[in-house]
């Protein structure tokens, strides 16, 4: 009897921990750092080979709080003529002709209660790569920073940026 209980406790302990690990894995999977996008847009070509500046497409990164996904006119400005025979470009043209917007999966998302402005950070002299990683080498964009508060604060502290709570929690 005692032996049975001991074995059960043993299995329970290991089983619980295994479940915990599985739960963590599921949680991680839910917040996939590199989601599959509706169109396989290669940053490797646009930002890598062509070295288009980020703001060529992310029009408002320097000018507003949000970097924004580019309007489709930007894509079609070039892709009306360039590489029109490719599958993904055909997909893009189809979206455009049907006047549907592309539902890009968000890679970086902050909760509502955080005030964050791209404009401020670019003005302070940060490169986009400092937070977003070397996007030019990513075939599919992958989250390079986890955007937790400690991550923000450590950088703010070192660069003598404002440390007031109100800076981000408005």
């Amino acid at each position, binding site marked *: 009897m005692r032996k049975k209980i001991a074995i059960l406790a043993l299995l329970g302990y290991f089983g619980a921990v295994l479940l915990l690990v599985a739960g963590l894995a599921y949680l*991680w999977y839910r917040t996939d750092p590199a989601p599959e996008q509706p169109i396989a847009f290669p940053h490797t070509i646009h930002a890598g080979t*062509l070295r288009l500046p980020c703001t*060529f497409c992310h029009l408002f990164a320097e000018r507003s709080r949000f970097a924004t996904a580019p309007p489709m006119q930007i894509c079609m400005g070039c892709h009306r003529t360039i590489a029109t025979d490719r599958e993904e470009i055909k997909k893009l043209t189809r979206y455009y002709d049907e006047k549907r917007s592309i539902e890009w999966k968000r890679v970086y998302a902050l909760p509502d209660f955080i005030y964050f402005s791209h404009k401020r950070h670019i003005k302070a002299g940060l490169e986009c790569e400092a937070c977003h990683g070397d996007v030019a080498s990513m075939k599919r964009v992958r989250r390079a920073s986890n955007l937790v508060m400690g991550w923000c604060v*450590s950088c703010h*502290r070192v660069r003598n940026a404002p440390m007031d709570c109100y800076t981000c929690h408005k």
Partner: protein
Amino acid sequence: MRYFLAALLLAYLPFLGILIGGSTSSLVLNFLGRENRNARSLRLSKELIETVAGNNPFLFLAGLLPFPIVACLWQRILPPPAPLPWFSWILPFGALLSGCLLLSFYRSALRRTTDLQILHFRAGAAGLLAILFASFLLFVLLGTLFNPGKLQLIRGNAVFILSYKALAGFFLFLALSFGLTGGIALRFPGRLPAGTEKPDPEYPGYARSVGSSLALGGAFAVPALVVLDLISLPSTALSLEVFAAAAAALVLALVVVLILYPYLENPAGRPGGRISILYLLMFLAFVAGEQAAVGNAFLGRQAPRKPPFPAGGPEGQMPGPAEPTVEKGRTVFQDACRACHLVESRLVGPPLKDVLSKYRGNLENLKRYIRDPAKVNPDYPLMPHLGLKEEEVDAVARYLLTSVGKESLPEKPAAAMPAEEKGKAVFETVCSSCHRFDTRLVGPPFNEVVPKYAGNVEGLKRFIRNPVKTNAGYPAMPMLGLKEEEIDAVARYLLAKVKGGG
């Protein structure tokens, strides 16, 4: 390079682990043995430290050699500037070295007699503490690798070198070390006692209980520490491989417990070898998991920007016999620049006559700009990187400074040029960037839109002078800023060219 580091760590960590586990248990057993006058624990203490150190004290030090290599690799794999100055490695290395020396002193004393003087015991304890400290520092340094975003900040604020990950990794390492030591201790009972000591019937049982309690304790601690380790990793470092490694470590720990559980009740057979191998496998899973996590964390951070690709540039240009550079410059200009730049007027980019005047007599600056354009005027979009080869950049820059505007380019047509030729020239330099006659390009095909103006030259001229957006399927046509006679010429030319035109 990272894989080499992983292999080194794989060899190094178990060594360090045995060193720590063996000497700790040896010291504790020695202390207990002297307090309780227990010869068995004294003997086990001696055997443990002998296993750790081998029979040759130099073997002890040989294990230290990987440390400078680890340090060197760590400095190298990080993007420059390396976050720590090289001399900061002296502290952990010095601690490790002195720890090992003190421990070997302790060991040689123990070899002579099991009844130690207090000095030797203290030397051993100090050595152990030094080694613990050094390995903790090692884990602190490794811990920084999981959060590459912080690496640049370390020089600004040394606090950032600490992380929970380092702590969790260190404790997991300790648990694995003691487990491994337990596994090794379990192998002793079958061994013949060294020297001429009289056989002690109680000794095997004693060694067994010490070994199995160490191994069991390690196995029970591993799951909790694995979870801690996972929680303390930043989400960017996680991936399926990391979870798989954690799960593998858990299963291995479970196997250890399942082997030891019946063994406790009925000590038969010699599980020591199996247990040691299981713990070594756990070390393997641990290092593999850490390695995968570091790889994930560095994904998209490590690769330096590649040099610009030669893309889109015209290839196989044979330099002409006369003035090869000018010839080549003209070709590059036609292929790369003309789509967006005119000499006299704004198109996508600014008119060349305005911007080029800044570079008169300053060829190098112009080349630098073409190589790596920057946004200057907020009214225009940023010029993209063109990916020209170095000699193309040179040729086109020379061409721009010497020939553009001076050559008889159609923007400055000779007065004598007949109207039709002038229209054709304007079409070729201006319109053809976006329009073809029969197919759509950026704008609609001329064969579709120009016939609307059949017999209405003035209407077409008005549109060219001041374009309005008429078709939602196309972007608006820009104002071209042509001269009146150019507009007239090109309008007539187009109407004459299209089918069904005037």
